[in-house]
């Protein structure tokens, strides 16, 4: 079966995959992750089955790339307590520095991935489970825990978000 031009895949899914990358690996590493994901996807694209869910496929590739990056970082890591300097996030618009972005960054990795894949990419929990491993129920629990943690952080006025509206 023939596939539509890859240009349409980039136009249609590029923005969503970038949001997912920013949520999972942070704004600084997101553009590298996006670029590696789409290059790998372009390479494999002719062999993709025509009935595949393209967005789930892209998220799966992005997920594996992020794992590879994390492993590479771990190999390069030298024993030190110094945290790497946060570069000015040239890659992300200033608004990404929002309460939610920092709340996402504080979630445990699995919850962050689950929330990003389910809520930002719109994958059903069954698909999220296929990407992450584990069961759909476990993914649903991780998603619920992640959302609850985000809500707690976002409701906390000390993090800059007004609690107005909570007074019914």
């Amino acid at each position, binding site marked *: 079966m*023939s*596939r*539509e*031009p*890859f*240009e349409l895949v*980039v136009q249609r899914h*590029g*923005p969503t995959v*970038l*949001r997912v990358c920013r*949520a999972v690996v942070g704004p600084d590493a997101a*553009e590298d992750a*996006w*670029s590696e994901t*789409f*290059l790998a996807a*372009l*390479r494999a*694209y*002719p062999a993709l089955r025509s009935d595949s869910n393209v967005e789930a496929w892209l998220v799966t590739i992005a997920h594996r790339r992020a794992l590879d990056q994390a492993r590479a970082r771990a190999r390069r890591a030298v024993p030190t307590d110094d945290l790497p300097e946060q570069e000015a996030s040239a*890659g*992300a*618009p200033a*608004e*990404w520095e*929002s*309460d*939610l*972005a920092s709340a996402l960054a504080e979630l445990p990795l699995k919850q962050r991935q689950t929330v990003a894949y389910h*809520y*930002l990419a719109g994958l059903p929990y069954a698909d999220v489970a296929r990407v992450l491993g584990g069961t759909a129920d476990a993914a649903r629990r991780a998603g619920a825990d992640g*959302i609850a943690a*985000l*809500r707690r952080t*976002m*409701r906390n006025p000390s993090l800059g978000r007004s609690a*107005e*509206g*909570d*007074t*019914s």
Partner: protein
Amino acid sequence: MTATEHPLAEEDLFATLPEVDADAQARLHARLVATASDAGVLDVAYRTIDTPLGVLLLAATEQGLVRVAYACEDHDGVLERLASRVSPRLLHAPARLDLAAREIEEYFAGRRQQFDLPLDFRLSQGFRRTVLSHLRDIAYGRTASYAALAAAAGNPRAVRAAGTACATNPLPVVVPCHRVVRSDGTVGQYVGGTDAKKLLLALESAA
């Protein structure tokens, strides 16, 4: 003020994340084109150019220019057919087509009579391809009949097939099927429409 018990439904929660900005999209697209090209996995590059005959779509493989399409051929449909007939690894990548775009612009400005571009004829097969290969023998500003073209291609009786070859030319303008006219002197059909054919012939006769 209306108060709500649960002000942050999931949708509202994520609504605070910014939409991806156009700058980031353009930057990432350019980077994808560059890395894909370096890696040899950008099978088809395309761009559009404005001409006196409207917007033309240009597409190139690594071998050369593979398609020139008029707007009346439906550019989206042309891209879909390129994806299925050549490769779906197809991106908007103007740089690979800079030379073709420049030469076509020079041609329409009356400053170029011959194209000096690598061409990829893979979209035309058999006798049609043979016919197309003889079109470059018709000099700028000259015309030939379909019958003469069929004869030049080695089959004088295949006049209709010569016409079909011209009508299905994947590289109009650059491969000059517009220089083939009917024996009775009328201009005949053209993939870009009869008016486009007349304009090209007028352009070449004015030079």
